[in-house]
């Protein structure tokens, strides 16, 4: 396959200028995840208000695929109700791992090239898995929405 099928303009742009990159000062939930195949680490912070994602950010160092994918995810979930944010993350994971054919709406089809590279699927879904775990933590512990960030 041609390289630009994998590295679409949108991806290169998100990689060069990642949106919502950094840490939130007072996240409701936070989850760090580690990609053991490449040693990359990502941390996703979410700020939740009224069952909606009020703010989100990701931090850490990753390849262009993981950076672009995290950047797109942060952009798309801000403002979404929590269950919709979950659907966004799950829908993309299902698309990339081949469990569904249609990409979720938005820019996600730009990452379709990743489907052909099993070794890159983990990169593309790292932020999504971190987000889902962060939201699960929050749901499991709703009395303490300001639980301290985890970094493991």
């Amino acid at each position, binding site marked *: 396959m041609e390289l630009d099928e994998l590295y679409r303009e949108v991806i290169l742009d998100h*990689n060069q200028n990642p949106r919502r990159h950094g840490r939130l000062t007072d996240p409701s939930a936070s989850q760090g995840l580690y990609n053991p195949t*490449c*040693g990359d680490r990502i941390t996703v912070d979410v700020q939740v208000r009224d069952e909606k994602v009020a703010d989100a950010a990701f931090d850490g160092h990753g390849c*262009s695929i993981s950076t672009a994918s995290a950047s797109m995810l942060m952009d798309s979930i801000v403002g979404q109700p929590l269950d919709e944010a979950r659907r966004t993350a799950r829908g993309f994971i299902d698309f990339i791992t081949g469990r569904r054919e249609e990409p979720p709406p938005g820019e996600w089809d730009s990452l379709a090239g990743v489907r052909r*590279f099993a070794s890159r699927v983990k990169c593309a879904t790292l932020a999504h898995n971190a987000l889902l775990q962060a939201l699960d933590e929050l749901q499991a512990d709703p009395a303490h929405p300001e639980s301290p960030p985890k970094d493991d």
Partner: protein
Amino acid sequence: MATKTIREQYPVLSRQVNGHRLVYLDSAATALKPQSVIDAERAYYEHYTANVHRSVHTLGEEATGAYEAARGRVRSFLNAGADDEIVFTHGATEGLNLVAHGYGGTHLQPGDEIVMTPAEHHSNLVPWQQVAARTGARLRFVELGADGTVSLDAVRAVLSPRTRVVSMFHSSNVLGTVNPIADIAREAHRVGAVMVVDGAQSVPHMPVDVAALDADFLAFSAHKLGGPTGVGALYGKRALLAETAPLYFGGEMIEQVEREHSTFKAPPERFEGGTPHIAGVIGLGAALTFLSEVGMERIYQHDRELAALAYDRLAQVDGIEIYGPDHDRQSLVAFNVKGVHPHDVAQVLDARGIAVRAGHHCCQPLMSWLDVGSTVRASFYLYNEPDDIEALVEGLQHTVRFFHGA
């Protein structure tokens, strides 16, 4: 044998990858297999499939003969004293685990010290962590020099009367350095410690003489020298193997079994419980024969020349940072391209048929020491040629243009 003749022995090299000739620069992960190794494995399956050491029939005799002949070949390749000092394993990982658990686990006492470096492959670190936790022994780490090299003085600085084990890589799979094992072994023996050598990256690339090194144990894998995956060997001095407990218990390693207890065979059979990877062992023997025919001294020089050339050429490319010393490199170069993640570098190179490794190379503590998450690594073997390095340099220049624009 000229490199061209050598290359003809490796069928995979005739392959096209993404429309380009294959430029295989990942031999430190696993080496390509020469035809003679493939033929040797196939012959066992096609002509004399049988179990070893137990079948009294023609095929069984032939299989046992070939299996034990491979043991003899490993012995002579490493210049070990006797065949029974060679244990077949599933690779360097098992060999090091056997030493850590079978010897370390039965000899270490609380407060004893195990000396290693922060540049060990996980397979020479994690087993010792486990054994240390179980026995109360402590891990001590030799301070690396500024360029990642291990000096004898730095080793001396951590040795103590409590040191029982010194376990170290012979050649680094990231830095390309070679440790002065003979000198380190002398220091280890002076304080009464055993010298364990991770030979995974040295045995394929240089003449390794366990007698000259005075190594007590040395482990390596077949697949990194062109043999099959899932097989390797551990050298151990006879007296030490005699004091080593087996990891696996069951068929073939026993002497006499009663209902309540059993006695075990002498080494090496004691450590080869169950039906071994017979075809793999025979393939390992064939790989060693092939390397010996080319000549290990020649392979050593060839790989060093390529590593030196690669260092010089990569150092000329803007934005490339190379890890490890600028001289005396063996067979590989680990580096990063500024502003481009190693995975992306590897992906762009792959589109041009160039196979490199991107990752932490099973050396996470060394990655921390280098202050990087991961690196790209190009590694060389007897079938590589200067053209491969030129392809790599062009590929990297293209990578920089692709991600940064030109």
